[in-house]
Each structure stands twice: as C-alpha cells, then as structure tokens.
C-alpha cells in the first residue's frame, strides 16, 4: 500500500516537472553513467537551468494556445 503511494507520488512529481520542461534528473545521471561511471554530469541546478533555456530561450517552438 505504502509502496503504491510512493510510486504514485514519484510519478506525479515526474509529470509536474516535465510539464515545465524538466525531465527526471536521476534518469539523466544514470544514462550519462551507463557506459562510463566517471562521466561528467550537470549538477541539479545546472540541469534545471539547461532545460529552462532549451524550453524558453526562443529556439524551438513554444505553445501558446
């Protein structure tokens, strides 16, 4: 029961974050280190800023209606 709630919570957090253009940070780190455990990764803050820039910086379309 508790486990189910935790999964649901994680899931909604993920959705809410992606709604503002930020994918899962842990998944990103896991992906970067998939082949090379020492691979350099962006910090959490840099990651969020990078995503905001991609989403809102004006390159690439953005929804309005």
């Amino acid at each position, binding site marked *: 029961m508790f486990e189910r709630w935790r999964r649901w919570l994680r*899931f909604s*957090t*993920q*959705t*809410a*974050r*992606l*709604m*503002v*253009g*930020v*994918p*899962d*940070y842990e*998944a*990103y*780190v*896991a*992906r*970067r280190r998939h082949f090379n455990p020492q691979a350099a990764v962006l*910090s*959490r*803050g*840099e*990651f*969020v*800023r*990078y*995503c*905001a*820039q*991609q*989403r*809102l*910086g*004006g*390159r*690439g*379309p*953005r*929804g*309005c*209606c």
Partner: protein
Amino acid sequence: MMSRYKEGAVWLAVALIGAGAFAVLALNRGETISAIWIVVAALSVYAIAYRFYSRYIATQVLQLDERRLTPAEKHNDGLDYVPTNRWVVFGHHFAAIAGAGPLVGPVLAAQMGFLPGTLWILVGVMLAGAVQDFLVLFMSMRRDGKSLGEIIRLELGPIPGVIASLGILMIMVILLAVLALVVVKALAGSPWGTFTISATIPIALMMGLYSRYVRPGKIAEVSVVGFILLLLAIVVGGQVAHSAAWAPLFTLKGTTLAWLLIGYGFVASVLPVWLLLAPRDYLSTFLKIGTILSLAIGILLVSPSLQMPAVTSFIDGSGPVFSGKLFPFLFITIACGSVSGFHALIASGTTPKLIENEMQARMIGYGAMLMESFVAIMALIAACVLDPGVYFAMNSSAAVIGHTALEAAHTISGWGFAVTPEMLTQVAHDVGETTILSRAGGAPTLAVGMAHILSRVLGGQAMMAFWYHFAILFEALFILTTIDAGTRVTRFMIQDLGGAFYPPLANTESWTANLIATGLAVSFWGYFLYQGVIDPLGGINTLWPLFGIANQMLAGIALILASVVLIKMGKARYAWVSLLPTAWLLVVTLTAGWQKLFDPSPKIGFLAHAHKFASSAANGKVLAPAKTMVEMQRIVFNDYVDATLTAMFIAVVLAMMVFGVSVARRAWSLRWPSAKEAPAVYRTENADV
C-alpha cells in the same frame, strides 16, 4: 466471441447516450437546460472518436510500428531525448498545448448561442484538430524530432520552407498582439487586477534568485512559495482597490497599459531565462492545470444551467462581439479546441523526443487534443451560464452599447436579452470592479463565469471577487509568460529570416543584433496591440479574426504537409484523412480572408472601412472615434496594414497549396515511397543501448 458482443453493446450505449444528450441540447427550446448535457455529449463524442477513428488512423493509415525505435530511444541522452512513460508525456504535451486560445475563442463565439460553438468544437476536434496533432507528431517522430519548419523544408523544398517561416512569423506577431490586448482589456481601469499582475513580477524575480542561488533545482518548493505569495497578492490587491491613496496609482488607461506591456516585453525577453521567465513559467503552468481541473470539478458539482439560448439571432453576422456570419467566422473564432495550427509547432517540438514507443503517439497526439477540446467546452459553458445580458454588456464595445450601465441595459434589452442597469452594477460590485462594461477579450467574461461556478463550490457570494481576480490572475500570468517567450521566438525568427538579407543580423552572439531583433519583434506586436487598444470597436473585433485566420492557415499548412507526406509514403488511398480537414480549413480561411478584405460592409471588410474613413476625410468630416484629421488618416493607414496582412496570409496559403500539389503529383507518379523518414531501426531483445 461473447466479449466482442459485450464490447459492441458498451459502445452502442455510449453512442446512444451521446445522441440523447445532443437531442436534449438541440431540441430543447425556451427552457433552461443543465450544462451537464454538453459535458455528456462531448465525452461520448471523444470516447467514440478515440476508440474508432484514432485507432483507424494508428493501425490502418499510419501503421505505427511498436518495434521501430523512437527518436528518444535512438538518441537517448537523458536531457533532450528521454524515453518517458506515456502518461508523463501526455501530461507534458497537454500542458504545452493548453493555453489562452481554447479559453478565449469559445467565449467570443458564445454570442451565437451555445450550440454552434459546441458542434464546431466537437466535430472539428474529431476530424481536424486531433488528426492534425497526431499526424504532425507522427511525422516528427519518424524524422528524429524535427520541427514543422524543418519537415516542410525536407519534404516540400526550401522555398515552401521560407514561405512557411514567414507565415509562422506573422502568426506569432498577431498572436502576441491579441494576447497582450486580452490583458489590457482585463486590467484597464481595474486597480485590483493591475496590482495583482504587477506583483507577479517581483514574486517571479524572487523565485528566480532563490532557485539560482539558494536552493537550485527545487521546483516544487519554490513554486509553492510563489503560489502562496500570489494568493497574498490577490488579497492585498483587494485592499489596494479600496484604498483612496493607492487605488489611483493602479488605475490605468488602456494606452498606458499597452506601453507598459510593450516595455515589459522588451526588458523581460532580454533578461536571462532563469531570472524571470522560468519561475513565471512554473507558476503559470501549475496554475493553469490546477484551474482547469477545478473548473471541471466545479462544473460537475454545480451543474449550472445554460442561460444563453442554443442559437441567437447573431448568426446572421450582426453580433456585437465579432462581426461576420456564422460561416466562415465561427470557424476561425474557435480555433484552439477544434483545430489549431499552433499545435503543429508544439507536436513537432519536445514531445516527439520523449515518446518511448511509436504506438503511444495515438494517445498523446490524438488524446491530448481531445482533452484540450474539453477545456474549450468548459470555457464555452462558463460563458453560457452567465446571464446573456451580462455577457453582451461585457463583450460589446462602448461604441455599440454606450458608456453607462443605463445605456448598456437599454441597448441590450432592445436586442431581446432582458437586463437591468442594477444587474450590471451588481455584477461589477460582486467581482470587486467599478464597471464590467466593454471588457472584451474573453478573459473577464470567463473570469466572471468561473467566479459564478467556483463561488458556488467554495466561499459563496462573498468569495466571488476573490475567484474573479484569481481567474484574471491565472490568465494574465500565462499570457505574460507567452509574451516573454514568444518575443524571444519572434526575435530568433527575425534573425533567421532577416539574416538572409543582412547577414550581421543573424549573429546571435552580438548584443547589437539581438537588441535590434528584439526591438523589431516588440514593435511589430506592439504596433498591433496599440492599434487594438485605440480601436473604437474594441480591438478584439479586428485582431481576433486576424489571429483566427492566421492560426487556421497554419493548421491548413500542416495538414497540406501531412497529406503530401501520406502520398509520398505511398498511402494515397488514405490521404483523405488529412485532405478532408485541409479542404475545410482552406475554404474557411480563404472565405474569411476574402470577406475581411472585400466585404462591402465597413464592419467586416478592411478596405470598405478604409474607404469610409478616407472619403469622409476627403469631405473634411471627422468620424468618431477619430477626433482629428490626423487620427482619421491613421485609421485609414491601419486598415491598409490589416488588409495587407490578410492578403499575405491568403498568399501564403495559396503558395503552400500550389507547392503541395506539385510535390504530391511528382510523388504520385513514382512507384515507390519517397517520404524522407529517418532510416528505420528496430528494437532487438536484450540489446544494451
């Protein structure tokens, strides 16, 4: 075997319930009916369209292949390309397509009654809007997540690519102008609203600094803090409105607000994204989703009754909200919610880079658009549960209904919608405003409608003003986000297109080039905004049809592209799926464009309007609202600008049609598929990718 019968029976029941709801809506005359019937009719249409039509498109037309790797899987970097759970992507995509459009269009269209709008929203989304979103998502997904512009260049050629980019640029300009105008209309002479919206700027800046230097990456935390501050701003706004010292400071004229917005657009769009835009984006996105959800719950709980008649006499084109007959103007007034070209830009944006399996494109492309359509239905309901007298008082310009509640009530009652001056002042008082007259643009009407519904769920009459200003805040907030982000998009488009003629402009490293391009972007939309603010007919009357034509034109372009691609894939016999909505959109946009240009009535045709003012000026007579000869000349000039823009939209559509037909004919004569998809890579079991 048994289960097949059972399934058939279930779908038959869904169809019958839907048909029953439609019968109630269409046949009931004279008595008020519950808005729930619209909800029931809509849900059954969505269910049937999704189950049968989208499945047909997915399996027969597009033949989605679950073994084929998606861009997210092929290029997975955890950052831009991320295979993501389909429900999460659905949420993302829905949040990206839902915005101001589905909320404004249906409110304006309510002047013709609730039935025409409802029917167009439902039929449009089923056969045009959701199909377009799905097809564009599919095309982009098969091409490594390329954007609409890139796909047009790839499949139709470089010249159509440039033409389409020009078209998109014009749409951006009109969109930003019309959205800014919605904000101006909502805030003019409203100290409460103006204070609340101004307060969002320091709140967002604080959030930006907090997430940059104090707790980076904590989105939820900073959003909650921001949300609480927003609620506080609404409460303080109420105090400001009642304070003799503060209220005048925030009571601004439309023209002042327009200049402030233009200045804001310039400054905000050159600041770093993390400082103002990103936190504003958090607030507006979460607030948007939350408000949509609460409106849905509100409608279900309250089940308000529809006060607006099913069909009003204004289908003949004499309506005060926008001029023009039901055909073609209803079909360009409601764009988002039925079919919106803008979605073609979004469906070819980040969404195709997130999908983890091709099969899910159906649910995300077609499904999310159905949900968006439901938002439009809710907006229509919110407008139609208001007393029609109040609705028309809010949405007609002062030139039509006069400046006082007495005059307005008299005029509107003359149209057959009984209303007293006391009712109009009472509503204004309830929502904490001095007047509600001539607040065109959809947002205030929707806000009153929402306040009407939500105050019955929570807070009662006493909370009405709070809910009204909450709704205004929510709309203004995401419109300001759009103005900021949209100005950036426009700036890059200007740099790309302008760079072809003057290369230094394309240098995005140069501050001079960037500032010049930003200045151009702001002055383009600022020009139309200002013109809209001083327009005697209220501006929305002129700008919304222009935006509608532009947006539907973009949908037309996207669907032309989809039809050509289907033919290039060797699926010509299925091409009707996109040719059908293409044909309809072309008929609608070209007719509307033609009427906006050449209609003999000055209320509809730009040229007729210009002629009326020019000939009067030649006789030395000044026509209202102009006060001087200079203003007369300016009105004539503006009419010619609008006419030129309309002509350009028509030219863009026709050019795309010609290019589309020629490419399709060449593809038709080939015996093999010629669509330029990224090479297919197939999923293998246990592969470590």
